């Protein structure tokens, strides 16, 4: 793929195929952690960090071990174990070397193992019809995780204002958050023809 295709793929990953608003991956943290924008940024950075590392590791494992031995049906079990392992080692690594970073995104790391986006993107990268090479995989994963952080940050700022809006009693909390996310998804639909 030429560089212009890569840039196109990157923009598409951030805006058009946005992981939350169009692919419906990573909704659990999107709903659970976006009450405060500070915690949303923490979650976003943690997702960028873990998604890029785990996608790289799973892509390599798929290329070197699963593909040649024709056991690609093991992808699910291998990928979830790799992601869980990567999360533990990343948390340990950050604890040791960068206490400041650990302060912002430390608590979200164990949450990330049950995040559908990380495993979802790792599996999408190795789909046979997508035919991703290393460059496309890398650009796609970075684009997707930036898209995740962008959306979760914007959503958290809106949600902070929602707290003191007079929402009917039955709609307080998750229902109104879902409806706001729906309106955001409509806005992101506007990007469809961009690329």
């Amino acid at each position, binding site marked *: 793929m030429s560089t212009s295709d890569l840039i196109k793929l990157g923009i598409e990953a951030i805006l058009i195929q946005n992981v939350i608003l169009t692919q419906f991956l990573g909704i*659990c*943290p999107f*709903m*659970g*952690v976006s*009450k*405060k924008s500070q*915690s949303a940024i923490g979650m976003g950075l943690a997702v960028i960090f873990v998604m890029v590392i785990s996608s790289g590791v799973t892509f390599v494992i798929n290329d070197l*071990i699963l593909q040649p*031995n*024709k*056991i690609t049906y*093991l992808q699910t*079990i*291998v990928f979830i*174990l*790799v992601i*869980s*392992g990567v*999360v*533990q*080692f990343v*948390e*340990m690594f950050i*604890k*040791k070397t960068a*206490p*400041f970073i*650990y*302060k912002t995104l*430390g*608590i979200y790391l*164990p*949450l990330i*193992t*049950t995040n559908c986006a990380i495993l979802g993107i790792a599996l999408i990268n190795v789909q046979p019809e997508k035919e991703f090479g290393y460059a496309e995989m890398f650009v796609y994963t970075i684009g997707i995780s930036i898209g995740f952080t962008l959306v979760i940050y914007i959503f958290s700022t809106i949600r902070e204002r929602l707290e003191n809006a007079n929402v009917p*009693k039955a709609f307080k909390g998750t229902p109104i958050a879902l409806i706001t996310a729906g309106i955001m998804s409509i806005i992101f639909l506007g990007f469809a023809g961009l690329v």
Partner: protein
Amino acid sequence: MNFTSILTMTLLVFGLIFFYAIGIYLNKKTPLPSGCDLPSLKCEHCTSTSCSYSEPNRVEQIKTEIKNSLKNKNSGEGAINE
């Protein structure tokens, strides 16, 4: 279904579980960095019950939250802008 693919499968899965178990073990062992306890964000507005930080009775907690939100709605019958 030759023997080598079974062997590679078992070794692969075993290696990865070991990698994960070692990760958990080492992670538990490394102390928290000095003066940086976990941020105040406890799990009150995170609904995932399977993350290792969640208290064991997370499910009952959600239910009690809903119950008392109902209760103060009823007790606040008289209050004007409930």
